[in-house]
């Protein structure tokens, strides 16, 4: 952060970026690609089933793509992010397209593992680029969240606007000492919602009369959630950072004693104002009397 970007009396406490393993959710998608690529290569070239189940290129491509798509659907359902499915769909489409474009059908048992590994390496690089694009600056007055690979985004949060701090640490975070801290602003920035929906259908009548009904119900739960650019995502050392943020937030919050003092001072000011008004009135009346005399 440049010196000219700092406010008056502002000093930087810590400049942070996410831990290399903090995007394990995205990295695990790439790890799966590598593992499945290696497995399909082994099945097609070295296993005892290579001639039985993987004798021709259709079965190799079919097995490879169907597993990728099924895993994509499962991962998308679990994380409620359909982009995982479309990502895997893109990988499958790219692989099939490459094989048919270059007429590599006979060598699909070799092309597919290499292609999958290459795609996952590219995936790892993209995730790493994305991780490195994050920058969190904790100053004595505010937290600045910066990020974006192509489009640059920035969020500034003053400590007096922080109403709540949510922090979480997964098992990997506990092992490597990183975690995520979400400062929730008074406007509710930093809050997301989990919604679930259940529906059921009924069909009555087999031949002539048919009745179709759908019954559903939804539920929404608010939960602390923000994009990695707007939270202190996977920061290391987690405990120290948490302590600093809590100390700074606490420092900008008026404690009950201070609140009492402010009220007392306000009362004092009011009394002084009243006294001043009374004095003014009195001096005016004194002036009137002297002028009459």
């Amino acid at each position, binding site marked *: 952060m440049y010196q000219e970007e700092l406010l008056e009396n502002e000093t930087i406490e810590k400049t942070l970026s996410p831990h290399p393993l903090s995007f394990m959710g995205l990295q695990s998608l790439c790890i799966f690609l590598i593992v499945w690529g290696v497995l399909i290569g082994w099945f097609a070239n070295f296993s005892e089933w290579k001639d039985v189940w993987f004798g021709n290129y259709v079965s190799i491509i079919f097995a490879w793509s169907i597993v990728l798509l099924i895993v994509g659907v499962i991962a998308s359902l679990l994380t409620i992010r359909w982009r995982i499915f479309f990502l895997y769909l893109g990988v499958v489409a790219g692989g099939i397209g490459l094989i048919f474009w270059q007429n590599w059908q006979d060598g699909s048992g070799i092309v597919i593992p290499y292609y999958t590994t290459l795609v996952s390496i590219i995936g790892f690089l993209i995730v790493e680029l994305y991780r490195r694009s994050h920058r969190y600056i904790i100053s004595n007055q505010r937290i600045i969240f910066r990020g974006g690979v192509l489009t640059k985004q920035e969020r500034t949060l003053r400590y007096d606007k922080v109403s709540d701090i949510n922090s979480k640490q997964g098992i990997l975070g506990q*092992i490597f000492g990183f975690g995520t801290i979400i400062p929730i602003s008074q406007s509710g920035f930093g809050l997301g919602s989990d919604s679930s929906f259940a529906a059921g259908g009924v069909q009555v009548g087999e031949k002539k009369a048919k009745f179709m009904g759908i019954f559903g119900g939804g539920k929404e739960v608010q939960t602390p959630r923000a994009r990695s650019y707007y939270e202190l995502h996977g920061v290391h050392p987690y405990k120290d950072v948490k302590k600093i943020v809590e100390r700074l937030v606490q420092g900008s919050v008026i404690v009950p004693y201070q609140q009492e003092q402010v009220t007392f001072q306000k009362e004092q000011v009011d009394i002084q104002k009243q006294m001043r008004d009374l004095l003014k009135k009195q001096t005016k009346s004194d002036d009137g009397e002297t002028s009459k005399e």
Partner: protein
Amino acid sequence: MAGSPIDIIIFAPLAPLFGVILFWFIQLLFIESQKYLLSKIRPKHEPLCRFTNFLGILFQTICHALGYTVTKSGISSFYISINYGKVAPKKEKKGIFEWLSNGFLFIGPFFIPASLLLICLYFLMSSGFDASIPGTVIGIEYTFAGQMITFGTNLYTFSEGFFGFLSNIDLLHPAHFGFVLLLIFIGMGIRPSHIGEKKREKVDMLYDLKNIKDNILHKPLYLIILFLMAYVLFYISLLLQQGWYVALFSILGWLSIIAIVSMVITHMILFLIRTTDEIPGYWKFIPYIVIIVSYVVMRLVFFFFPADFTNSTSLLAMILSTLLSVILLLKYKTNKFKTKTPMKSLRKRKIEDETDVPRRIIRE
């Protein structure tokens, strides 16, 4: 049936029991040694130690939960972190159920993780495992010596198959590679300790043994019942001329062997980590690269020039080249072997230098 009635009725059932206890003690010793090694590398490898701690706690917590499930106590809360785990039952059951669930907690971590490996072995070992099914040993004698011999034979047959499998393991086979990873992970996590309300920083072998002893002495009647059940099983096996009794304890012996082997492999890894820590800079990564490169190169050589014993030769070459690389690095990058400057002379010189200065000053 040879042997005196006293031997058959009283002493014979104790033979496999003693065998299992012996193996279990060996396992405990390995656990202690592993803890010592981990404590030595802790300052430089905190995450690794946290990871092993998490694995240990995970197994303990699962065993504890399993204990509550078996005793139908139910589970109301399940908490696990890298340094603490807790399972709370829905219904607080007393008596034998409490004793059983505590038994699962204290003794489960010794055997339950190893049983996972045994299941994997069943699917992976194509030879050796079938032949060693307990009870198939012909001519079981129901005496102390006979039972001990049968128990030992069962363990020997299993060990022969297991070590044969390990020495021929194909690390380029996904299932075999997965098994090795599981063996290492489980080896790092096999260690029992009490999961109570209070956190304990140091949990050693004596503490574990004390817990087990307390659990036994807390309700000695249950222990007597367990012994009686064991004796009844032995008498049934004797009457039906079946090897069920020795089979049960043989399986526990197998589990101990698997656990010990997994800990030996973990020891080798921990020892490698500890040794490479002494090598400065990026040179410390060379042995780890050598592990992979040497194995792959050997397999490639055998792929193009087929020969017998390719898997075991590759494994041996991998171990030897890693060992050689570590020794060479220690020799040329550190003064571990004291070949650069003998430590004694260095110390002497230092002392002389220190003592010389004041003397000179005094003389002057």
